[in-house]
């Protein structure tokens, strides 16, 4: 659309023809109030708040439905308009309960804000208000009807945004009411998006309602700890006796990678931090064989002495290679980086791994040397055509599913799905190819023209024709692909222009764990230990001999060939089905937040902080890196980063070599291009217009409106902040940036709370090793309400899970009849 010029309140504005006036004004800094208007959802023109005066038009016009054209003249503020808005608010307040003093939304309520602005301070009516009792629609969602102003945001968010259509309108006139599809309960995905969209306190969440007031919380933007999409979540945190508790999760400032979106896990799944099962004291196995609470000093001394002893032992079953280290899928990049550096330089072993849920090594190997071919999660919102092979985004990657739906709705993106079982996104798909379970392997060959395997499937050829006819394509594939299968699929796409890739994996930082070198054969950045390059100098005593994989370590431990196992945030005994009794001979140390199957048999258990209780960065499955900020606080626990530094210190290691802190920590020497000097400011990637690029640092409205500490962000982004503590994970980030080729970060963007894409194309091609064994991959396949060990300890998710089962039962019974 060509740009047009029009006048608003005497100012000349320019916008593409057809832009909604309300949007054009917002971009120009002129705020037009609205309740029912919500960017990205269908237009309602129901609240009549956005009325403006258009020259030569007799009636006031709604800015949310007026499209701009050349030469138009608008007035957005005048006594007439103010009166119209005031009258509308007076009408709304007529039946509103005005229970602001106890309402969840009090202080964050758009109706309050509007009343404040337009001053409808006097009640015109003496009659009783219409009243109805509050309703509980599900374990997550409550509806307080009298507060509802019928803006229909929830209805549209649920229907258009989520494609769930669980909400509608019942009755009419002044009896009109928002009603759930189940009559008195919700049968939906329990995402809570309706609560977030609600401009008032009509929809409230079980986790937050009547708990606190918004101004009593600190609002901390961090990254969700559950799935591999890495949504930004704003946690509302309140001080309590033993630290700081999380009372709310949302993304109300709509910033970051997920914009509006959060699913049930991100929004409600935080109560594990206060679970009574939390480990809060270090435990050491005593002479009687039971785990006994001890002080941190004692526990660290026990661990460091024992590890030192084993490392320095010259016996057959001694030395660094007799220690195995297993890292975490939910720890930060800095922790994982530090863990492998600790293993390789302090313990002197390449026996380091993590429970691999996704074959990122094979993916990066295939992408190495091909820049701009790895897709960011943001690409899924703008790609013109998407080929989804395997995976189930709606269940396992809710943000990806949201983005695909939004892309379909706003840009009529063409979605092609190849799947072995029906998935919900097929509703948006242009074509779906039903594959046999074993069909993924043959799909690449079929797409390249080999009919032998899949040619018989009914629509296979038209599917292939359509996919191949696309001028640009985003290929997203699931964990069905591993090893050589990934390589051939990527090769097929790389041969075409404008094809990008994304690989779907589990957990908040599985990608980071692989990127940071939690592998027996790969250093950070997928650099083989056999040809360590710069690491040879950086890591003293680095062995170039690949170590054992995680299952190998456990097997070796059971055979008594491993003297010690150091396990961080991971439960390999349960995951690999290891016999707990067989591990008795090894000295097992576990850092975790719960007493997992592995922790239960450990000699020392160290209570760790969860992702919500520490700082650092994580990388989602698309390779988008985001900043994790400390939200909650729990007395007794320590972040994995600090624990590792303390143990290394206890072992007599030079802590300053492990973590570059203190004087001189500012220097960011140029080891790899592009050099990260003080003046280096990477070019920010263009970000889709609907998403905020503003640095939010918390709440963008309400009492804690985000006055970002721009000075601090700037200093941090340029590496000018002195790392005063060896426990500062950002000191490790400096080193990661220096040594990991794919982590060239636009730090200003990162520190302002946005996502920064890593580039596997920067991984050097020459030094790649053979693909990993496909059988090492153990996909978690967590759904909407499960999240591995965390999910089991999250009451809100457990409740939702059983609720979903209970409401789906009658349907199953009916089907059985």
């Amino acid at each position, binding site marked *: 659309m060509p740009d047009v010029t029009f006048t608003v309140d005497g100012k000349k504005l320019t916008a593409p023809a057809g832009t909604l006036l309300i949007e054009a004004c917002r971009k120009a800094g002129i705020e037009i109030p609205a309740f029912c208007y919500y960017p990205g959802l269908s237009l309602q023109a129901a609240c009549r708040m956005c009325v403006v005066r258009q020259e030569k038009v007799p009636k006031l016009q709604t800015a949310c439905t007026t499209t701009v054209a050349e030469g138009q003249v608008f007035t957005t503020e005048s006594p007439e308009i103010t009166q119209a808005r005031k009258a509308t608010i007076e009408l709304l307040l007529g039946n509103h309960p005005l229970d602001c003093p106890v309402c969840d939304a009090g202080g964050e309520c758009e109706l309050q804000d509007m009343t404040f602005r337009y001053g409808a301070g006097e009640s015109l009516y*003496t009659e009783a208000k219409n009243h109805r009792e509050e309703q509980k629609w599900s374990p997550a969602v409550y509806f307080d009807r009298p507060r509802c*102003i019928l803006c229909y945001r929830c209805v549209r968010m649920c229907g258009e945004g989520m494609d769930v259509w669980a909400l*509608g309108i019942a009755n009419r*006139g*002044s009896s009109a009411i928002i009603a759930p599809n189940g009559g008195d309960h919700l049968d939906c995905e329990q995402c809570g998006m309706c609560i977030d969209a609600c401009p008032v306190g009509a929809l409230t969440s079980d986790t937050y309602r009547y708990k606190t007031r918004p101004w009593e919380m600190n609002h901390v933007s961090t990254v969700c700890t559950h799935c591999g999409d890495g949504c930004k979540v704003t946690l509302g945190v309140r001080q309590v006796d033993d630290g700081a508790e999380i009372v709310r999760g949302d993304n109300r400032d709509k910033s970051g990678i997920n914009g509006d979106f959060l699913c049930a896990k991100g929004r409600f799944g935080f109560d594990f931090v206060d679970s009574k099962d939390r480990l809060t004291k270090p435990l050491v196995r005593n002479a009687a064989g039971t785990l006994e609470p001890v002080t941190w000093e004692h526990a660290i001394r026990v661990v460091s002495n024992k590890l030192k002893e084993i490392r320095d032992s010259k016996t057959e079953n001694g030395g660094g290679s007799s220690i195995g280290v297993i890292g975490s899928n939910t720890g930060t990049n800095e922790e994982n980086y530090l863990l492998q550096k600790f293993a390789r330089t302090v313990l002197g072993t390449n026996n380091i791994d993590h429970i691999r849920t996704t074959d990122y090594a094979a993916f990066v190997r295939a992408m190495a040397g091909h820049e701009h071919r790895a897709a960011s999660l943001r690409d899924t919102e703008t790609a013109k055509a998407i080929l989804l092979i395997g995976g189930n985004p709606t269940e396992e990657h809710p943000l990806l599913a949201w983005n695909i739906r939004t892309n379909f709705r706003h840009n009529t993106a063409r979605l092609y799905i190849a799947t072995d079982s029906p998935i919900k996104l097929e509703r948006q798909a242009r074509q779906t190819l039903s594959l046999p379970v074993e069909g993924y392997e043959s799909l690449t060959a079929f797409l390249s023209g080999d009919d032998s395997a899949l040619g018989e499937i009914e629509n296979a050829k038209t599917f292939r024709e359509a996919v191949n006819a696309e001028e640009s394509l985003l290929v997203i594939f699931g964990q069905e692909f591993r090893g050589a299968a990934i390589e051939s699929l990527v090769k097929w796409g790389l041969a075409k222009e404008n094809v990008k890739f994304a690989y779907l994996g589990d957990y908040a930082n599985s990608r980071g764990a692989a990127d940071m070198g939690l592998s027996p054969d790969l250093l950070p950045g997928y650099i083989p230990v056999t040809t360590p390059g710069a690491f040879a100098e950086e890591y003293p005593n680095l062995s170039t001999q690949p170590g054992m994989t995680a299952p190998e370590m456990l097997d070796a431990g059971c055979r008594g060939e491993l003297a010690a196992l150091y396990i961080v945030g991971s439960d390999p005994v349960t995951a690999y089905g290891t016999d707990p009794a067989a591990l008795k001979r090894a000295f097992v140390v576990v850092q975790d937040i719960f007493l997992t199957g592995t922790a239960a048999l450990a000699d020392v258990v160290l209570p760790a902080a969860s992702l919500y209780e520490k700082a650092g960065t994580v990388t989602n499955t698309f390779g988008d890196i985001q900043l994790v900020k400390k939200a909650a606080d729990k007395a007794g626990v320590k972040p994995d980063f600090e624990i590792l530094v303390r143990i290394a210190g206890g072992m007599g290691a030079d802590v300053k070599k492990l973590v570059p802190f203190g004087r001189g920590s500012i220097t960011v020497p140029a080891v790899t291009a592009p050099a990260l000097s003080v003046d280096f400011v990477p070019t920010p990637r263009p970000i889709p217009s609907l998403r905020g690029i503003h640095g939010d640092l918390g709440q963008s409205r309400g009492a804690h409106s985000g006055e970002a500490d721009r000075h601090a962000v700037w200093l941090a982004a340029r590496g000018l902040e002195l790392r005063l503590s060896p426990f500062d994970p950002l000191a490790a980030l400096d080193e990661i940036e220096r040594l990991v080729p794919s982590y060239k970060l636009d730090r200003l963007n990162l520190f302002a709370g946005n996502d920064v894409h890593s580039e596997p194309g920067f991984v050097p091609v020459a030094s790649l090793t053979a693909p990993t064994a496909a059988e090492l991959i153990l996909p978690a396949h967590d759904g909407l309400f499960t999240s591995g060990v965390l999910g089991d300890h999250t009451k809100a998710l457990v409740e939702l899970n059983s609720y979903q089962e209970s409401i789906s039962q009658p349907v199953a019974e009916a089907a059985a009849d």
Partner: protein
Amino acid sequence: MPKLTSHPDEVKIISKRFGMGAANIDRYIELGGYEATRKCLAEGSEWIINEMKASGLRGRGGAGFPTGLKWSFVPKQSAKPKYVLVNGDESEPGTCKDHLIFLHDPHAIIEGTIIAGLAIGAKMGFIYLRGEYRYLIEIMEKAVADAYAKGFLGKNIFGTETEFQAVVQTGAGAYEVGEESALMESLEGKRGVPRIKPPFPAVVGLYGGPTVINNAETIASVPHIITMGGAAYAAVGSERNGGTRLFGISGHVERPGIYELPMGYNLKKMIYEVAGGVRGGRKLKAVVPGGSSTPVLLPEEIETLGMDFDQVGKAGSMLGSGGVVVIDDQTCIVEFALRTISFYQHESCGWCIPCREGTDWLKKSLTRFHAGFGTKKDIDNIQYLAENMMGRTFCPLGDAAAMPTLGFVKKFRKEFEDHLDGKPCPYAKHVEVALV
């Protein structure tokens, strides 16, 4: 068959077959029916639209938009199918004209629908009947079935290559669905809530296709216009208001009923001569000229008032649906206002705030006021509420509720003041106080 009263001034065009058994298709044909359609099939689209433009026919639903012009807005080429919609959701209090057409002359509706279809190039017509008109459904459905049987509807109507299908659909009881876009929503099986305009139905209407939607009386006038010629039809009415209209006179008159009179007919004459004057020789207090949504007129305002869209508009009211409600001097205006607002409160769809909340509070306030518990400030409040609904709502229903209320408060403020201080209603002599 109800007795059809008449008056010498009546000009029988739409009603000329009333009472003659024209619901029977053979009788209808005998009376010259379906000749207009044949003529239109021969003459073609452009000719039809020109005749319609020449006729000066303006929408009989209430807005008075020139019908020929409306039809000409429909794009000639369209990727989506085009539709003709007949709005028979007659629900405005004081209005009961369309039901007579459905009752006596259903084939005129079908004929008008086919002709509208020929004019805009539609192959499908929907006749949307008010849900409460249960007794008309059978008549209308039989008429459509008969037309199909005769080959007047179907794949090849009248033996030509032209296709036209028609379906009768009923509403579920909502005044709001009389609004054209809400009717389309209802017809599509959705909640009867109006759509955002633009786009207008002529461009994006039913199922997203270009749609012409006309009031049943408008559609029934079409075959007559074709038969007598647009110019001749125009000559019957007043300036820029072609033809005749079915005026429904109700309230306190001696002979209430539906009368077909030329556009521009004097309102005073209509009340005092055609309808036999105010009942029982009482004095005229006020007249609602065009259905309950139109602002009330005082006796002195109707002396020379011609009943056409332009003249009534100039007098500060609207011709609307042509439902004239006559109010005598023993009627309480406050109660009348309450009755009126009660209807709109009940019928508001609830979509937008000013209408949903405004009608509710107006009703609550007027109820209390009429019961004698009002204050002087309430009168201002009622006026303030109505003023702030006017022109601010999503669809005209809000205006329809606010306009008459404003009229009552402004023109009869004294009667409101007479209800103050706990006094019993000093006016209502023959109507029980209706508190809902």
